[in-house]
């Protein structure tokens, strides 16, 4: 059980980043990337079909944003845990992420070791909060669109 490979689903509309992150993760011997999607509303189906253990979700995506996709996953594919990766820390994102029951979030430009470590810990049922994302959120402040 502990040595089973971790099945990862990648969702990001920026395909350059998605491809690079997927390749980076796949270089790890205990990680297998089983699906890549570019829209939030493809996440649930792909997770179910591939029996993914961890869904690595971007936030800003067409169709459905990553946080809404995370909430849908928790409801419909509860065995699949969610790791949010985002370029922008915006207030409101963290709160929604927690309400959606995600297991971790970190900045997309985090060093690879940190990303790989986060995937492993999320797969193992732990929670991962990247201090840099928290700092970025404090810096970015309230999202004018979701404030109030």
């Amino acid at each position, binding site marked *: 059980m502990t040595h089973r490979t971790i099945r990862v689903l990648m969702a990001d509309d920026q395909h350059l*980043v998605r491809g690079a992150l997927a390749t*980076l993760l796949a*270089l790890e011997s205990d990680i297998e990337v089983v699906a890549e999607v570019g829209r939030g509303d493809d996440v649930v189906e792909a997770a179910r079909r591939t029996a993914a253990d961890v869904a690595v979700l971007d936030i800003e995506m067409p169709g459905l944003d990553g946080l809404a996709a995370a909430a849908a996953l928790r409801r419909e594919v509860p065995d699949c845990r969610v790791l949010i990766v985002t370029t*922008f820390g915006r207030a409101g994102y963290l709160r929604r992420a927690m309400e959606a029951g995600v297991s971790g979030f970190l900045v997309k*430009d985090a060093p690879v070791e940190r990303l790989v470590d986060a995937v492993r810990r999320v797969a193992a049922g732990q929670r991962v909060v990247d201090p840099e994302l928290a700092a970025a959120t404090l810096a970015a402040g309230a999202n004018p669109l979701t404030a109030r």
Partner: protein
Amino acid sequence: AASIAFASFAVLAVVRANQSLAAARAEVAQLAAERERLRIARDLHDLLGHSLTTITVKAALAARLADRDLTRARNEIADVEALARRTLADVRAAVAGYRDVRLATEIATAREVLAAAGIEADLPRVVDDVPAELAGLFGWVVREGVTNVVRHSQAKRVRITVDQRVIEVVDDGVGVLSAVADAALAASGSGGGGGHGLLGLAERVAAAGGRLITGPADGFGAPGFRLRVEVPALALTSGEAS
């Protein structure tokens, strides 16, 4: 007595209005500055967040791949280089866009640029007779015209003349010689081959009710290139040029 009371009231109102003028000034300035900051911050986020993330992630991938798959590593590096170049160009464009274009500053910049390019320049020293509503538009003409001279003309000399309604940038370079360049100019209206510079400028000029004319320099040096913008007095509406 009634009229005296009314007069006092009116005087008081003048005082109040002046006070509120000062207060309003400060408040309006702060709001405008903040609105502008937020707008630019959003631009920046969108412009740079994505590309810098992509550069970071792809560089990380190239580093990891170097030992295992040199060909792919090389491709990733090439992508990073192209992305970085594009991002730099985007930043330059953004910075340029945030700078307000004013005729006097553009002429000062043109002087520098032309000197650096080794092109002899005859530029107006005083542009005070250009109406304020046209200063922005004419600034754009100088910027685009001089950029084109430096990039395309191979000119030795350039002259800019300005009066209240007309501005001209003339050079003694190769002109729009080839069928290719002519086609580019013509096609730019349909987004084809050529650049966007003159097309964009023509749009600004049209919005101000004026017209943009290009052609050979005749007389200034053959064949040369002439860029001329005319805005008839009647055409002046408020808030044209950006």
